[in-house]
């Protein structure tokens, strides 16, 4: 066990946690905004995949990584708008529409990828983002190289967490988001447009999911494969519950999940080779289920989650 312990405090291990946590943090914050406004977005898995593909394609065709990021964010926002159109404007079932969005986005991603890149034995790759050390801070022992010698997108995620908390708890818009997720009728009678606020929150959520997708293909793997998201979207949905719909806790949940995931990667690589590697792969998911079971017992979802708002109905 002490060998494992030593590994934890290695720079490489800490850096790996941060890298694994980054897309999860974006995705979790995205889902959180959507759910705080009362809209469950099960489209997250597909939105991440389509954004990852679109961002990768834009980057590899144009040669500009930041253009790729922008495209991924726009695609994510657009798909968020699509989900909002069905669930907010038309008031259809959030479960059904979310799964529909995931199926649509996944199908579209596969189709476009084949159309653009054809069938290749080795998937095309790009030169992704490179770590940007932050002067001074990156000189701190252990923490410096692990946290402050990272991709710009990682820094963005670190900033996004307090920013999300600020927006949600300190701005009038954030209050509106929380109110439409708790009691849309109260928001409506206070002169806040429930439909507009929900649209905005779901679109913002989609954009953040797009950012998560962009990170996967442009910083983490530098290539697009059909399994690039591999359940991270679903995990984010669980992490939101685990994080009790709060930006700080949700980000913390993402970090915890990343820790377990990084740990299992190490365990796979280290001497425990006689155990099938699938057993290690399961570890973070088992952790999520157990953690959820314990933590979500007194977690209370936004009251109006899953409930469409229709004005003249009572």
């Amino acid at each position, binding site marked *: 066990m002490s060998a494992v312990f030593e590994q934890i405090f290695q720079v490489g291990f800490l850096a790996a946690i941060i890298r694994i946590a980054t897309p999860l943090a974006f995705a979790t914050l995205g889902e959180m905004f959507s759910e705080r406004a009362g809209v469950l977005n099960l489209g997250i898995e597909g939105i991440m995949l389509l954004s990852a593909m679109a961002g990768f394609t834009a980057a590899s065709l144009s040669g500009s990584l930041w253009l790729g990021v922008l495209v991924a964010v726009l695609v994510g926002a657009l798909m968020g708008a699509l989900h909002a159109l069905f669930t907010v404007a038309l008031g259809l079932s959030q479960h059904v529409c979310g799964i529909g969005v995931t199926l649509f986005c996944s199908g579209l991603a596969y189709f476009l990828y084949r159309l653009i890149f054809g069938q290749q034995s080795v998937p095309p790759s790009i030169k992704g983002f490179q770590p940007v050390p932050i002067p001074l801070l990156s000189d701190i022992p252990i923490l410096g190289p692990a946290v402050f010698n990272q991709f710009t997108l990682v820094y963005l995620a670190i900033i996004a967490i307090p920013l999300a908390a600020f927006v949600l708890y300190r701005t*009038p818009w954030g209050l509106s988001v929380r*109110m439409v997720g*708790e*009691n849309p009728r109260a928001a409506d*009678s206070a*002169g806040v447009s429930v439909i507009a606020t929900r649209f905005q929150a779901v679109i913002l959520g989609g954009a953040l999911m797009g950012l998560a997708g962009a990170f996967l293909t442009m910083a983490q793997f530098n290539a697009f494969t059909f399994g690039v998201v591999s359940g991270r979207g679903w995990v984010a949905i669980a992490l939101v519950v685990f994080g009790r719909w709060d930006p700080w806790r949700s980000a913390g949940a993402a970090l915890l999940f990343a820790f377990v995931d990084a740990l299992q990667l190490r365990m796979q690589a280290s001497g425990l080779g006689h155990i099938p590697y699938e057993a290690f792969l399961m570890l973070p998911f088992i952790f999520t289920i157990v953690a959820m079971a314990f933590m979500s017992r007194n977690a209370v979802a936004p009251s109006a989650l899953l409930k469409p708002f229709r004005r*003249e109905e*009572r």
Partner: protein
Amino acid sequence: MSAPLIEMRGITKSFGAVKANEAVDLAVAPGEILGLLGENGAGKTTLMNVLFGAYAPDAGEILVGGRPVAIHNSADALAAGIGMVHQHFHLAPRLTVLENLLIGIPGKSGRIDRAGGLARLKEIGRQHGLSLDPDLPVSALSVGEQQRLEIIKALFRGAKLLILDEPTAVLAPSEVDGLFAALRSMAAQGLGIIFISHKLNEVRALTHRCVVLRHGKVAGRVDHPAGTTSAEMAKLMCGHEIVPPAKGESTPGASVLTLDGISTSGHAGTTLREVSLFVRSGEILGIAGVSGNGQRALADVISGMLSPDTGTMTIAGKAVAQFSPRELQALGLGRIPEDRMTTGLVTNLPLADSMVLPRIGTEAFSRKGLLNPAAIRAFAEAQIKAYDIRCPGPMVRAGALSGGNLQKALLARELAFDPKVLIVSQPTRGLDIGAARFIHEKFMVMRGKGCGIIVISEDLEEMLMLSDRIAVMYEGRIAGTLFGADATVARLGLMMTGAEGRS
């Protein structure tokens, strides 16, 4: 009368085939308290929702300060100086008082303007004597405090006209006095107020003028409510005289429900401590008490929703082994819960389904595990007729019914199966006097047929009129029991505060 603050002209609003409002005219002057009266389903709430921008009228116009304004949503209404306290509060329980106040108010340099909000709250506290702790979550407030928050919310936005939809239905008698004092002070400072209530003595005490609606139309206006009798107003509302039901003689038989030493724990609200009581057939037992003294737990135990820790309960001679609603129903218990929306009828189901729900597995409504829709419909249609439930038909969503009609539907459902014991909580809360009278009459008929009835109510007048015996609850115990003939409002009031106990 000075120039009207707000005027509604020719307002018409239909929901499908139901004309909820038809060519309604109404005006309120500054400093005036206007009573809006009418039977359940007469269209009072609908009319106010039109004024507040929640519903779009089919025809008619709204004038503010003599000028026509277009009110498409609540934001427009708020901008025009109209504030509304809804029948069912519009608050987010998990947000704080201040957050509920600041919703929809532009911030200061991108942030929520906390300091400004606090200052405004203080000012309202000074001006009208209304104050609340800004950082408490709304879920920690009592019903009366939540209502105060709704009023503050309207004033916070600079309302010049305040609409209150049945504000007293949820208040204890002592809280009503506080509310009236605040409303009078607001009117004295030039606010216009529209006050909706079914309690005619309140209307006569508070309002300066009244408009009476019947079937969506203005049926009459009362210029001096204080000088008009309740009977006259009732006649305007219903179109005929209302006579109080005769309380016939009834000789109580054997006990149909007995509670012996019932104590509870582990639930929200006041727990029961050693509660013993009995109801005999052909008898009405009233349970009086300030709300929150264990009435909720008592009702839950008797209806099988809560298992007591100790003590026994017997229904018609049989000891209750398992506390579940289904079990107790089988023993002959009928219940009408306090909260009609959540534990009463299923608001999203058709009315007909909701009306047979507790008996849906019985032979009358299903065969070999399949529902019998024709029988369900026929049953519902018969009840709608028998109880004069105003609705478009048996297939309407139960949630679309007005409060009074919802209550009639519940009563119809429970009484149709001739229960041996009936437990009802706040049976006439929110009901117009015609409907209340109707329900009281039904109780008398059931009593005459030998049913034992327990009535939990905060309305002492109702309690005195109905009950053969009255038990007073205080802090989870029975503080004492009085015979109906010995009870007076003053005496009950004293016992309710725990000052006097008697058996």
